[in-house]
């Protein structure tokens, strides 16, 4: 099993433990322990089982999801349900004074939690459809999802940030590294100006497809911003990265882009750079660094004849 997501959920795990502690303490301070003879062990087995189950659900939610809004909502929903079930379970051990408010509100968190969970599941559904869509590389249809770029159908910068976070975490534990390469279309603003934004979008889309076709399975390509693309390559040596970078560059620069019905072709030019990352601490630093590499590559390209 892969536990890479767990470190991102420290706050959630802490709040889970806190809530359990508070509920147990509350029950303990308001109620009185039952005599052994009064305890119904079949009930305990049943309700204890359900309590344990809700905890297992929370666990699986946290290990399988990156941190974010949907995860938080799922977690809060499950937590509320868990509180209800836990109170029910503790009932087996404690007797409360008559009409104590604790028994009155015991059932409340569960339905609330379920409503929250339903909302979360609906959002998860939307997220998943957007991702499926991206995976199938079909017609671009989803425009509102933050993990997929609408124009090119590649992943968005947001998704790349999440992936780099994961890679950094993995790298810390298993001493691995990862490489990034970046592509920047030259004179794209001028192109837009000359041929219009519809053609600009088309060009971006075609370049995106070329990048996607030239990388390996397991590499992740995303549109970073504007005319800038970025590819994440886990466990890849610099030599390999360079090779793929050159292949992709060649592929892009051989694209004979057509606007309209004429056979006149525009050949895109790209600036590229790559770097291997090992032992970095935050995705912000990594992205800042790769952008600097790109700026340096741009500077070099501007003066091709200097010594």
């Amino acid at each position, binding site marked *: 099993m892969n536990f890479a997501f767990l470190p991102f959920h420290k706050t959630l795990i802490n709040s889970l433990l806190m809530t359990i502690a508070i509920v147990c303490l509350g029950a303990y301070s308001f109620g009185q322990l039952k005599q052994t003879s009064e305890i119904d062990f079949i009930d305990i087995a049943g309700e204890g089982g359900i309590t344990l189950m809700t905890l297992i659900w929370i666990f699986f939610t946290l290990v399988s999801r990156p941190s974010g809004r949907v995860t938080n909502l799922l977690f809060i929903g499950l937590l509320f349900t868990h509180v209800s079930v836990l109170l029910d379970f503790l009932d087996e051990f404690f007797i409360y004074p008559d009409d104590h408010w604790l028994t009155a509100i015991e059932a409340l968190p569960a339905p609330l939690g379920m409503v929250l969970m339903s909302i979360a599941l609906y959002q998860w559904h939307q997220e998943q459809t957007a991702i499926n869509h991206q995976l199938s590389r079909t017609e671009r249809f989803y425009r509102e999802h933050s993990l997929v770029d609408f124009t090119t159908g590649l992943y968005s*910068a947001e998704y790349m940030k999440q992936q780099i976070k994961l890679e950094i975490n993995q790298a810390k534990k298993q001493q691995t590294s990862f490489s990034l390469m970046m592509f920047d279309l030259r004179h794209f*603003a001028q192109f837009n100006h000359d041929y219009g934004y519809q053609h600009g979008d088309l060009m971006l889309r075609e370049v995106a497809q070329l990048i996607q076709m030239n990388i390996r399975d397991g590499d992740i390509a995303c549109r970073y*911003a504007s005319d800038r693309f970025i590819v994440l390559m886990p466990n890849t040596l610099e030599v390999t990265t360079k090779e793929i970078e050159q292949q992709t560059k060649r592929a892009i620069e051989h694209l004979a882009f057509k606007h309209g019905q004429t056979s006149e072709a525009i050949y895109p030019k790209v600036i590229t750079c790559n770097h291997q990352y090992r032992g970095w601490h935050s995705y*912000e630093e990594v992205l800042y660094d790769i952008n600097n590499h790109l700026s340096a590559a741009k500077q070099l390209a501007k003066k091709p004849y200097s010594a």
Partner: protein
Amino acid sequence: MPFFEQHKKSLAIPLWVILLVDMAKQRHIAPDKLLKGSKLFLSDLSNPKLKISHQQFSRVIENVSKYLPHSDSAFLLGSRLYPNHLESAGQTIAHAENLSDIIAAARHFHYQIFPFLFMRNESTEQYQYFIFNQAISIENINHYQFICELFSSLIISIAKQKQLPLSRLTIRFPYSAPRHIEQYQAYLPCKFEFSPSANAVSTFNTQQVYHLPLQIKFDNGLLMFPLANGNADLTKHYQQKVPSITLKIGFIHYVMQQMIKRVRNKQEINADWLANHLSISNATLKRKLSQHNVTYQQLFDMVRQQQAVFLLTEQNYNNEKIAENLNFSDITNFRRSFKRWTGFTPQALKNLNQHPS
């Protein structure tokens, strides 16, 4: 009145709205969603004489962030405005010979090129600073950020086309680094930085007014750097095509200008004076200011705070000199006010700006 207010239809920027509508169409979003609540209609937009109010445009921007949740909208709009959509102002700039010319044109065409911010110039022995504040109304941080992104993207498209050495330009944004930093990296190939103190300020200051300026800084040498496509005759030609009527300026621009002037001339300024100066009652002034989402005290603090921070961090003035500059009777008073404005003591803020974590 020498100014216009946020509800007055005085902005000739239908093209901006058309470009935004275009962007919506490109992303398969119904154009009327963008215009919702703005009392603008698609059919109005084709009227070249159409003028809209700041209020209406604010509403459109609000819709943009709601229905076009792509973090690049402001940057795209900025890069598409120049040169064609700035009309004669764009043509004048396109033929400017150096940055000085562009700045002169910017002053001349201010409310045509970019009516949302007003510009103030400061200089030291080494650097030129152009300091921008909201000109018409004090809007919330989302709006302000959109405007700052739009403006910087416009500035950079101009600078790119004029082949200005962009590495000599630094833009300082009045907020802390946003999530979509990638747009800044891709669209702004100059140096840029954020204001690390911005967060502290907004949590410290219970009155949620966004009071830091956008700042563009470059070395003095850049002013006369020869630019691409410079042509003095063409610049003049386009400049003369514009009738030289004195345009009204934004309300906030006007009030802040008065404050800056009075502070600089060591003259007393207060709400009574301002109301008197505008020949309106104190209550009317108060109402007008609150329609622009600000109080007299907030604006006055803003003016003095910006001045104080500038003198402190860029001019390296000591507390005494700054206090004297801002007409404080003594340093203790100044330090207390500074702490109230920024949440930091002068020394702490200086350290923070020098070593942003």
